[in-house]
């Protein structure tokens, strides 16, 4: 990489750039914390127990829990017992959303969690490894009086993971088991206003279906969707960030093409980082408001995955290009050992995501965690991805260690070098240290905010204002990595000042015999700037 802007900038300018970036950073946090509502909302639904009296129905009938045309309801199953209604005639109906409300495309996604209320009975306990077979249908309509249109229908199996915390005695009959939440449904777009879920738990003693699942009292669902307000703020942010990154990217690449030499690897990688950031920024989600694109959730995952793997690759290559160990790199193939785990790990996560969210495109009730084989497969993918991540970080740490070792080695020999070579190495050291510092800060910020958002209940009250910590986390961290990429492209772009500096290239030509790397990484020697001198002094001390 040629003498970058960062080396030639005066301290004052660098500070100004830093302050501007910090202001934008604070702005990103504030947008999330003060304007946006919390990112997601969870709504409780208690399934209404409807009675289906017709034995063998030709067409599917949809059961509404309330409103006009509501079904025959029963309150409790004791009532059903008295009326001699069988389990197969009971339909659990849930209308999403609540009465008088309607869903909106701004909600982006909708996922539903299932919970059973199962009462403990001495003689009717949940058997070990009990499986529930759920016959579920999902329908939608867009006006309150229209007909329901079927959207999906499936027969799903879910494993009941329940335990009874108190002693299993007659005394404690009627207490509820504590059951794990069951993943139930995931829809990648909310294009319709009203949704209706009809759930049946058919019993077949011969085939051992739904036998030994205890005495079910109620079915509860929790519907989660992104808040419309958060989506709007998020889109606005993306729409603002896209042109900023795009412009700096074009500017960056123009600078590189203006140079006489072909771009080096690091410059290409920085461009790729910019492209992947733009890819994630482009607000294609705007289309999800108008179109019913269920794959948007999956697409979002893929975009994030590409960006993360690009960022990780960038760190490795940046370290490698600053190793200063006199070996020619500048080729992508040199880094296969380090980049390999990243590619392999993200590929594993991609396969996993395709197995979960990909299948959900056709069957929203599918869950890879529902079956034993699926759980093992999913765990296998995640563990392999985890191992890859560990491997990557070992490589990265080792490389950073090598760079620091070389830096301390070079420092001792710096005063003895020729001016051009000394400046070259000082530039390398400064560039590396700067990026190292910024990267560590960003990573630390991400981790800290992640922990805060996990531990915290989601919002802080500050006088009259409510600060949405989770929203601030999302917009803040997203803005931060954008600024990070922006800053890298700006500061590590080749400097203007080398133009017309023929003498310096000649100087390097003379020295290149003993230092091959110089040809790839340095083409300029200019009067050192203040900051340059400063770090140079530091390095000598």
């Amino acid at each position, binding site marked *: 990489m040629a003498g970058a802007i960062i080396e030639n900038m005066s301290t004052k300018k660098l500070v100004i750039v830093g302050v501007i970036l910090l202001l934008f950073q604070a702005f990103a946090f504030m947008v999330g914390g003060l304007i946006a*509502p*919390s*990112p*997601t*909302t*969870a*709504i*409780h*639904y*208690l*399934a209404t127990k409807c009675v289906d009296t017709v034995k063998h129905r030709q067409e599917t009938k949809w059961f509404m*829990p*309330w409103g006009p045309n509501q079904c025959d309801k029963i*309150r409790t*199953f004791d009532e*059903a017992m008295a009326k*001699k*209604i*069988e*389990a197969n005639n*009971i339909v659990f109906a849930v*209308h999403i959303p*609540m*009465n*008088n*409300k309607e869903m*909106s495309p701004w909600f982006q996604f909708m*996922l539903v969690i299932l*919970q059973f*209320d199962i009462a403990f009975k001495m*003689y*009717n306990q949940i058997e070990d490894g009990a499986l529930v077979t759920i016959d579920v249908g999902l329908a939608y309509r867009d006006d309150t009086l229209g007909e329901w249109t079927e959207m999906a229908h499936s027969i799903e199996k879910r494993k009941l993971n329940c335990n009874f915390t108190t002693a299993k005695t007659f005394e404690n009959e009627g*207490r*509820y088991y504590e059951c794990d*939440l069951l993943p139930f449904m995931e829809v990648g777009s909310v294009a319709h206003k009203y949704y209706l879920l009809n759930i049946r*738990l058919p*019993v077949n*003693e011969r085939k051992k279906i739904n036998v030994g*699942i*205890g*005495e*079910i009292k109620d079915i*509860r669902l*929790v519907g*989660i969707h992104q*808040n*419309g*307000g*958060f989506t709007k703020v998020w889109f606005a942010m993306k729409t603002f960030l896209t042109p900023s990154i795009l412009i700096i990217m074009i500017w960056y690449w123009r600078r590189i093409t203006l140079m006489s030499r072909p771009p080096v690897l690091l410059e290409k990688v920085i461009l790729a980082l910019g492209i992947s950031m733009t890819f994630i920024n482009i607000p294609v989600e705007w289309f999800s408001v108008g179109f019913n694109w269920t794959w948007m959730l999956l697409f*979002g*995952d893929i975009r*994030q995955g590409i960006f993360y793997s690009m960022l990780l690759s960038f760190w490795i290559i940046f370290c490698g290009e600053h190793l200063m160990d006199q070996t020619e790199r500048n080729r992508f193939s040199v880094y296969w050992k380090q980049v390999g785990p990243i590619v392999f790990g993200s590929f594993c*996560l991609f396969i*996993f*995501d395709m197995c*979960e969210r990909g299948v959900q495109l056709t069957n929203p009730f599918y869950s890879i965690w529902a079956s034993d084989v699926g759980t093992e497969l999913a765990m296998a993918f995640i563990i392999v991805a985890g191992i890859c991540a560990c491997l990557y970080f070992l490589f990265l740490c080792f490389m950073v260690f090598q760079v620091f070792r070389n830096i301390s080695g070079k420092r001792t020999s710096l005063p003895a070098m020729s001016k051009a070579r000394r400046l070259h190495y000082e530039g390398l050291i400064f560039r590396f240290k700067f990026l190292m510092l910024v990267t560590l800060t960003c990573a630390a910020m991400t981790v800290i905010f992640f922990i805060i*958002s*996990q531990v915290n*209940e*989601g919002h802080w009250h500050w006088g009259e204002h409510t600060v949405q910590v989770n929203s601030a986390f999302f917009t803040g961290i997203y803005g931060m990595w954008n600024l990070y990429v922006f800053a890298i492209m700006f500061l590590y772009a080749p400097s203007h000042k080398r133009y017309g500096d023929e003498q310096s290239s000649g100087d390097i030509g003379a020295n290149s015999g003993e230092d091959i790397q110089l040809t790839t990484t340095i083409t300029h020697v200019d009067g050192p700037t203040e900051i340059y001198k400063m770090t140079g002094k530091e390095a000598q001390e």
Partner: protein
Amino acid sequence: MTEEYVLRCVLMLCCALLSANASNWLYLAKLSSVGSIRDEETCERLRGLIQRQVQICKRSVEVMDAVRRGAQLAIDECQFQFRNRRWNCSTLETMPVFGKVVTQGTREAAFVYAISAASVAFAVTRACSSGELEKCGCDHNVHGVSPEGFQWSGCSDNIAYGVAFSQSFVDVRERSKGQSSSRALMNLHNNEAGRKAILSHMRVECKCHGVSGSCEVKTCWKAMPPFRKVGNVIKEKFDGATEVEQRKVGSTKVLVPRNSQFKPHTDEDLVYLDPSPDFCDYDPRTPGMLGTVGRQCNRTSKAIDGCELMCCGRGFQTQEVEVVDRCSCKFHWCCYVKCKQCRKMVEMHTCR
């Protein structure tokens, strides 16, 4: 028209006279004849409500079915929790539902008030979740709701609405008296303690749904505990209830523990003013005081369900009875049980 008006006045008068017992609204549980409470007319025909409660009923008719279920839930849970005690929460077919047992400021009264306030909050919240009610978490009368509406930031939890409704409906009797008698203070405190039993036992549940299901995005919500658990909590508070008396601190009247060596009660504890009677004998002057004659008891137990204590020292008689029990049953998850009948001889002890 005039006839109806007169009738209404009489009803109101009845209500006013009977309002001495603030848990009269529990009588709603016994009103199965009314059917579902659908229109404002029905509100006036409901016995057991005071005028202000009738107003609330008219204002939010849709909630009243839930309130009635709440009353039933309170009575059922009370009977479950007190099944082994001398006073077993038996109800009468007349008003007041529990007879005169809860008219005094006893521990039992404290329990009844707490469980009924909690049960209304519980039943209303459940009705919200099943979509029967229109306002609920999105109601602007409930604090904590976002002004921007459902599409922007969703609604607040339904429990907030349930608790707020319980506060307005159940507490209105004490507040309407316009005085801070020690009994009103006790009832208000116990009502609040009952609701706290739900609020402080809400379970936090979370779901991760970030990239590939990671916890990058996590949504948490609070789930209501099962009512049996609420009942157990309030029963524990009953066992450790504090006897209090009214004292004036500054210009306000507060309840403080009668025994100053006890540490002061918290918001979640039950308080009572008068010691309980022993509930041993039938008392015709006190409706609801049925005594323990004929109650079953446990011979081996040393606790309150043991024959010694249950029968108040009167002794007990033992019978050999043949019990037809269900055994080797086959169950479906709902509504189907196929059993064999097993007969066995059991010793049954009843109080004299």
